[in-house]
């Protein structure tokens, strides 16, 4: 069963959204959740975070935005709810309790006069419990009602990708209408460049040509400096409708400079673009490999 869902950058999450983040690593979590919390705090929205961590340890805030959220927690704009008060019963995850807690928090936020409230929590630990997957799924189903009931709440449910098997991931994904991702590195209405984490790389949408090469070069450079353990950089091109010869040259040059055993992988090339590269010959782009094919989306 394929479920329709929207992929939305965190900057575009709106009230009524019940979003899902299966983060691959700390960097992705920092970027999405850090931006989510920061955007709320900086625009006078309420933020409710079910976590045992102190304010200054919340993902992404200090590292990305340079703020210690403790003062916000002190005045109540940031509401940190420890797990044992929000969602545990006898030391185990209790989905019903979580839903009740969050409903109450959303109602309070409304009464306090906030025009929006952002809710988030990391449920990786709950998945690891016996029968954890089923409980988290039942929680998520209830979440829909809780969040879309009013007009002021938006939620991101976080899970660390490595904690789920592919089936669980699919089931959990199906309980959400929105998948949240990082904000794009670049977007000028013609070209959008977004970091991807599973697989590691970039997603390019729109048209890439000479005038837009700088942001592309910058994005690639940032990737390779973080490369460390990764020997393949993936470019998701399913929504790239045009790439010029200069940019292909650039890809070839970039791939050449990668260390031995590394590759730049082009995934989901559109058939008409792929056929042109076939015509030119992939040997003109040494170090560039053809990845998965998926055609149009």
């Amino acid at each position: 069963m394929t479920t329709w869902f929207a992929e939305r950058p965190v900057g575009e999450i709106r009230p009524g959204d019940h979003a899902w983040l299966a983060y691959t690593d700390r960097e992705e979590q920092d970027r999405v959740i850090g931006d989510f919390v920061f955007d709320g705090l900086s625009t006078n929205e309420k933020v409710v975070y079910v976590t045992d961590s102190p304010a200054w340890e919340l993902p992404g805030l200090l590292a990305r935005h340079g703020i210690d959220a403790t003062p916000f927690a002190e005045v109540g704009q940031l509401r940190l709810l420890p797990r044992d008060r929000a969602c545990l019963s006898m030391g185990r995850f209790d989905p019903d309790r979580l839903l009740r807690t969050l409903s109450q928090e959303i109602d309070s936020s409304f009464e306090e006069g906030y025009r929006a409230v952002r809710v988030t929590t990391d449920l990786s630990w709950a998945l690891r419990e016996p029968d954890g997957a089923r409980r988290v799924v039942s929680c998520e189903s209830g979440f829909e009602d809780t969040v879309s009931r009013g007009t002021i709440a938006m939620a991101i449910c976080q899970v660390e990708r490595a904690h789920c098997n592919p089936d669980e991931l699919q089931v959990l994904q199906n309980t959400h209408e929105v998948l949240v991702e990082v904000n794009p590195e670049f977007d000028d209405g013609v070209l959008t460049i977004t970091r991807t984490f599973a697989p590691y790389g970039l997603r390019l949408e729109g048209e890439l040509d000479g005038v837009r090469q700088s942001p592309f070069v910058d994005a690639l450079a940032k990737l390779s400096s973080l490369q460390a353990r990764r020997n393949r950089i993936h470019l998701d091109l399913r929504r790239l409708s045009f790439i010029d010869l200069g940019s292909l040259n650039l890809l070839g040059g970039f791939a050449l400079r990668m260390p031995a055993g590394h590759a730049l992988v082009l995934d989901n090339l559109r058939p008409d673009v792929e056929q042109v590269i076939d015509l030119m010959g992939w040997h003109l782009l040494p170090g560039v490999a053809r990845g998965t094919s998926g055609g149009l989306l």
Partner: protein
Amino acid sequence: MKLRHEVLPYADDAAFLETTVPFVREGLAAGDMVLAVTGDRNLERLHGRLGGDAGLVEFHRSQEWYRHPARTLAACVRQADVLARYGRGLRLVGEPVWHGRGPLEVAEWQRVEAIVNVAFAGTGASILCPYDLRALPLSVLDSARRTHPLAARDGGTQPNPGFMDPWAFADTIDRMPLPPVPAEAASLRIDAADLYWLRQFVREYGKAIALEGWELQCLLMSVTEVAMNALRHGRPPVDLRLWVDQQTEKALVCEISNAGHWRPAPGMGLVPPAPTAPSRFGLWAVRLLCSIVQVRTGRAGTTVRLRLAVS
């Protein structure tokens, strides 16, 4: 490893086989990869005469092999390069197709013959080009003399006195004046560095003549490359013109002109980039993607005309 590029003018079956058979056998003995590309009749005769050895030779029909000048050249050079890396040679009996081609195409294929002398240099390839004296116009035979350093004559191989420097020959093709732009051509002045709108314009035009898919992509990539060069290295005004030409075969023609005088290195994208030193493949790629690319440059300005055959 030296290139051998030889023309074989022949007037009957006997003359054809007299040279091609020993040429092929020599190649087999040397461990070359041997290809025979010619017309049906010659293929049959050569196959028959080679007997058991025929199984070691790859046979192709000229009509299927000589489809596109740059692409055919690129594929052959690539094959020769790969073989050379292992100390082997490419040995080709290659009879180009001349009939049923318009004058522009004929000129391009003649230029390919000239460029062979540069593109295959150092690959140790042996290329024997049969030209049928009974069937070909004098102009084609004449150009064959100028593009092959060697000729099969009197049962042996002789240097060809008429041989011309490949770049000089290529120049003669590039000096033929371009026919004028037809009055009904669509036109667009290019003054923005962002070529997104240029591509939209070309897309719309392409749609009107049912040009789509990868062929449309070829056009868009070529137009972007040429327009970008004109903006970066040329002088304004930079103009684009588009029309459909139906004189010989139906083709979409796109011309980009600017007021600058371009002095390119010899070759102008005519030679495939060397495999060991991949470099910017701009104009060479444009030649691969379009059917024919014509470049005219001088003090009055530079014009690049792209032709894409449309079905």
